[in-house]
């Protein structure tokens, strides 16, 4: 009997669930960087695969929206394709791969290279929303530390890196302080992307489905990556241009090209890469399509990190 009755609401989530998430979102925006607990629901993809982002997107999206979904910066990675198809089928929305055409961008692990604009919403998929979790496993304890604005643990951790390596050895999910008050996990974006969060004109929403937390950074809000006066935060940088489009200044993926240590660096942001490649000669003269081969794997040609 039940077999014939199965049907899903527009946008998948039922209206009551949407209201619950919407109420949580409003508090998240009102308290920038604070993790609002919410009664995370199951969604038709596994936990850890973007269920928080999917719930946030499902709670805000409407037919007037244009959705872009990226994973690792790319629109064509399988999970991005899967989530995009999900919303196309349950929310009947238009989708795009172009950052500037999207009204909502759901992302895993990257912020697009194309600067976000006012009115856009970026939804981050978050695996571990608690920046202090690996330093203090207990929720009851981390909750108290946030209440007391007691973030010494994190500074100690970063300082231990400096003592040991001479610099901070955190390369992604690099902790930030939001609005000068809350320590926040930016999700596992590379520290390269951290500066983009600061005073961004777009609304940034974060959904952690498994951990049942929603948080937000409103537009034009200060987002500082932690650092010390003598050891300030330094995002990773790439010196080489993308091997496909020639763009410089973007985040690159290293692609192994043979079994002799050969590799090349290409844009992680596929939309950015395609558009730079298509643009008539306005990129740098260093543009090249040849693969960069590392002569000796032990001496990489990346001069990453300042």
């Amino acid at each position, binding site marked *: 009997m039940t077999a014939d009755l199965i049907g899903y609401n*527009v946008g998948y989530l039922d209206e009551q669930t949407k209201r619950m998430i919407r109420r949580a979102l409003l*508090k998240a925006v009102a308290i920038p960087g604070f993790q609002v607990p919410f009664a995370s629901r199951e969604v038709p993809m596994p936990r850890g695969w973007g269920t928080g982002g999917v719930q946030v997107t499902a709670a805000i999206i409407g037919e007037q929206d244009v959705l872009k979904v990226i994973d690792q910066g790319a629109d064509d990675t399988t999970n991005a394709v899967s989530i995009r198809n999900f919303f196309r089928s349950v929310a009947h929305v238009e989708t795009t791969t172009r950052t500037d055409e999207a009204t909502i961008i759901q992302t895993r692990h990257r912020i697009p290279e194309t600067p976000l604009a006012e009115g856009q919403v970026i939804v981050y998929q978050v695996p571990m929303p608690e920046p202090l979790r690996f330093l203090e496993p207990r929720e009851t304890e981390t909750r*108290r530390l946030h209440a007391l604005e007691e973030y010494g643990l994190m500074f100690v951790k970063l300082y231990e890196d400096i003592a040991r390596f001479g610099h901070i050895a955190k390369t992604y999910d690099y902790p930030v302080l939001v609005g000068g008050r809350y320590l926040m996990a930016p999700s596992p974006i590379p520290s390269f992307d951290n500066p983009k969060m600061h005073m961004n004109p777009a*609304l940034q929403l974060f959904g952690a489905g498994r951990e049942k937390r929603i948080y*937000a950074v409103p537009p034009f809000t200060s987002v500082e990556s932690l650092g010390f006066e003598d050891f300030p935060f330094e995002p990773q940088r790439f010196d080489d241009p993308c091997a496909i489009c020639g763009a410089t200044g973007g985040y690159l993926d290293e692609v192994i090209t043979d079994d002799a240590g050969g590799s090349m660096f290409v844009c992680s942001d596929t939309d950015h890469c395609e558009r730079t490649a298509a643009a008539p000669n306005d990129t740098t003269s260093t543009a090249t399509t040849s693969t960069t081969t590392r002569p000796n794997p032990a001496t990489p040609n990346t001069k990453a990190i300042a």
Partner: protein
Amino acid sequence: MTGPAGAPAIPAPGFADPTRDAQRAFRAVLDALAHPTRSYPLSGPARSPAALGRGLAAVALTLLDEDCSTWLGGSLGADAECAAWLGFHTGTRLVAEPADAQFVLADPRSLPPLAQLRRGTDEAPHRSATVLLDVRGCTGTARFRAAGPGIDGATGFAAPWADAEFLPQWTANTATFPRGVDLLLVDEDAIAALPRTTRLHAVGPAPIGSASAPPTSTRPAQEA
């Protein structure tokens, strides 16, 4: 909305298309809260109770349900049609004390002092009240300068609903951050918001950026 004598009135309809209408209204609320002081268009059900108005009806339908508690102030609380309509469409639990409510629906005159509302705790600042303030037909002259998250620099805005009591109350509200209440300013067809992060300063009634400096004597409110 009045039924035959003696029979209970049948509440007026809610959203024509509950899923899509609620989504649009929510985006207006979210945008408003993310861009404090800026006004966003809001469309509500055509035949909502007069005491509530279209805008407040839209926000209520979008945010309230049986999982939340609501306090109705002033004429809203006194209006049987309004309570029946909210009960029928949202199922929200009406509470007698504003301090017990997650949502406080009031007009400027019936708005309880902000300090009496739920402001959350340091560990759970999100467990705080959201005020849905009915600002229809307000004619005050208050103007503020606003700054904080969501505002690029600072901006001026007119607050015809604000009386002299408001600014000191609001200043106290922002001072307890992260605890505090959030304010949704709901007009018939538009919504603006003041989250607890928005800091306000009084300015004169003349529009910001106009050539004439605001005369200090007409300041509607002084900072606490």
